[in-house]
């Protein structure tokens, strides 16, 4: 490998049934300088790829995952045993067609599934970063992705696509590296993290801090995890991903009965929605690290593309050559359509080539991960149109 970088690094994780597995990753010895002034070296980036890179190296699509997502976008997640989180969107013949495009997805900086983050070992101290992991920003997260495509020797990505926090990364790509992105799809996202969303994140964080197993962030030294706190954080966040209608349809006021009166069954009863949320919370703590959760939610809170431009959101997009398609969902109250519209107007002010669709759905923020035929058509059509403008051949790859 060039630059003394090392492919096929072996970050071991423990999967279902206690089996060890390794993530495909690259180790970049030079590391990364962060916005906060600190640097991380070496930098390890765990990633997955699908399809084939064309000989012209012009058919690569980078998919940015959301807060608790990972690089296993279209294949079974070795940790959870579940199918890839966007397997319905990415694959041969799917809207993001791996017969045609070379798809890359990497675990974000600060994550906990192979890329350098709080659970990684700090080279200086020889121990895990844990709560001493530097404060990163969305710009740092994308800077790590830029390092990855440099390593893969891809000059310009055909497209960057991401939903929710993945959309923030897609926007960061076009605000800071637009010459390296031909087309972008920021989905169910916002150009800044709203006060409401910061508030939700803060409640999540306080739940973690309040857990007796938190140990001021050193829980791993005590062989503990703040499972209750992290579980509650996930339960609350999960509500924000849905909608009132979706919750009503899925659970209504249905109750489960139990002969025993226990913690789990208040007065011997439990609403199905409670049981569902507890399940969400308990499965989450098995796959996600609390310090990672804190690091990444904070990076989201800091996200505001207009912050360096006196609040003028059009400035970062001036002379942006990227074809952009903004997508929102009508029932998404975490990243509502009004925020997408603000973004679209700023892009128009900057003269950018922008499309904007609001998909009618009653399933809330999570709709971007679910079966929404209009959304699928939008993704496929936008990519087809952009590929034609980029001069990509049909059936390439």
């Amino acid at each position, binding site marked *: 490998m060039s630059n003394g970088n090392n492919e096929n690094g072996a970050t071991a994780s423990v999967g279902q049934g206690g089996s060890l597995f390794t993530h495909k990753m690259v180790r970049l010895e030079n590391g990364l300088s962060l916005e906060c002034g600190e640097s991380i070296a070496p930098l390890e980036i765990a990633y997955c790829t699908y399809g084939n890179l064309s000989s012209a190296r012009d058919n690569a699509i980078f998919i940015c995952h959301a807060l608790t997502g990972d690089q296993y976008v279209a294949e079974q997640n070795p940790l959870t045993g579940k199918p890839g989180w966007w397997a319905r969107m990415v694959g041969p013949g799917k809207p993001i067609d791996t017969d045609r495009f070379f798809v890359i997805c990497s675990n974000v900086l600060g994550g906990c599934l192979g890329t350098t983050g709080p659970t990684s070992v700090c080279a200086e101290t020889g121990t895990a970063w844990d709560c001493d992991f530097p404060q990163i920003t969305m710009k740092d997260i994308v800077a790590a992705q830029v390092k990855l495509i440099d390593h893969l020797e891809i000059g310009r990505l055909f497209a960057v696509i991401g939903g929710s926090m993945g959309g923030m990364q897609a926007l960061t790509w076009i605000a800071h590296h637009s010459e390296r992105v031909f087309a972008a799809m920021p989905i169910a996202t916002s150009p800044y993290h709203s006060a409401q969303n910061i508030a939700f994140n803060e409640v999540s964080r306080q739940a973690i801090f309040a857990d007796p197993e938190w140990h001021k962030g050193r829980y791993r030294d005590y062989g503990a995890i703040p499972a209750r706190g992290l579980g509650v954080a996930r339960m609350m966040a999960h509500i924000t991903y849905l909608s009132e209608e979706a919750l009503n349809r899925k659970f209504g006021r249905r109750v489960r009965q139990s002969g025993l009166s226990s913690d789990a069954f208040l007065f011997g009863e439990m609403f199905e929605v409670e049981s569902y949320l507890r399940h969400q919370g308990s499965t989450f703590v098995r796959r996600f690290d609390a310090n990672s959760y804190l690091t990444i939610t904070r990076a989201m809170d800091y996200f505001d593309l207009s912050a360096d431009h006196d609040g003028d959101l059009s400035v970062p997009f001036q002379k942006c050559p990227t074809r952009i398609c903004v997508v929102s969902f009508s029932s998404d109250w975490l990243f509502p359509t009004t925020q997408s519209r603000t973004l679209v107007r700023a892009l*128009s002010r900057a*003269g950018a080539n922008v*499309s*904007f669709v609001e998909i009618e759905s009653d399933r809330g923020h999570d709709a971007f991960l679910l079966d929404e035929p209009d959304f699928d058509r939008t993704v496929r059509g936008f990519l087809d*149109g952009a590929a034609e403008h980029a001069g990509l051949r049909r059936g390439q790859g």
Partner: protein
Amino acid sequence: MRVDQQLIAEMITPGSRVLDVGSGDGTLIDYLYRTRKCDARGIELDMQSVTQSVAHGLPVVHGDADHDLAHYPDDTFDFVVLQRTLQAVERPQEVLRQMLRIGRHAIVSFPNFGYWRLRLQLLTTGRMPMTPVWSTPWHQTPNIHPCTIRDFVALCEEENYTIRQWLAIDEDGAKAPWRRSVRWANLFGEQALFLLSRQ
């Protein structure tokens, strides 16, 4: 493509930057991109049409003439097109001003309320006219600002716009032969098409 869209396309210089306000299913912008190598974009109010357009790879944003033109910088486009929509916007005068601020030229088509059948119906029945073009009853119509060809010409004079080209169009969308006289066109043209620029 409709005949009036064909006439609009003929007014547009190949290779120019075009914004189609009320782009519908995107037929015109698709045609301008494919046959005239234009950088053609659309704004459309109906979300289904927007989704359909974007799913065909066309750059269309959801928005409307009254509220979204203000967000484009001056001279972003060579041509800004408003097809059969002027009579339905909240503030037609302001929309025209915005069109000629963000674009060097404006192409505007609208149904002519001075058309003889409408005049005759109003005269003989005393009720609001109903024709294939004006097909909704007065209390349901989105066409809140109907005007005649002469009204439009007067507005252009008031606003100091140069009328570069104008056509009256008959029922089938074909060019009607009243090029010389606004008065005759106002009587026999069912629709009108204007190419304007700033003075």
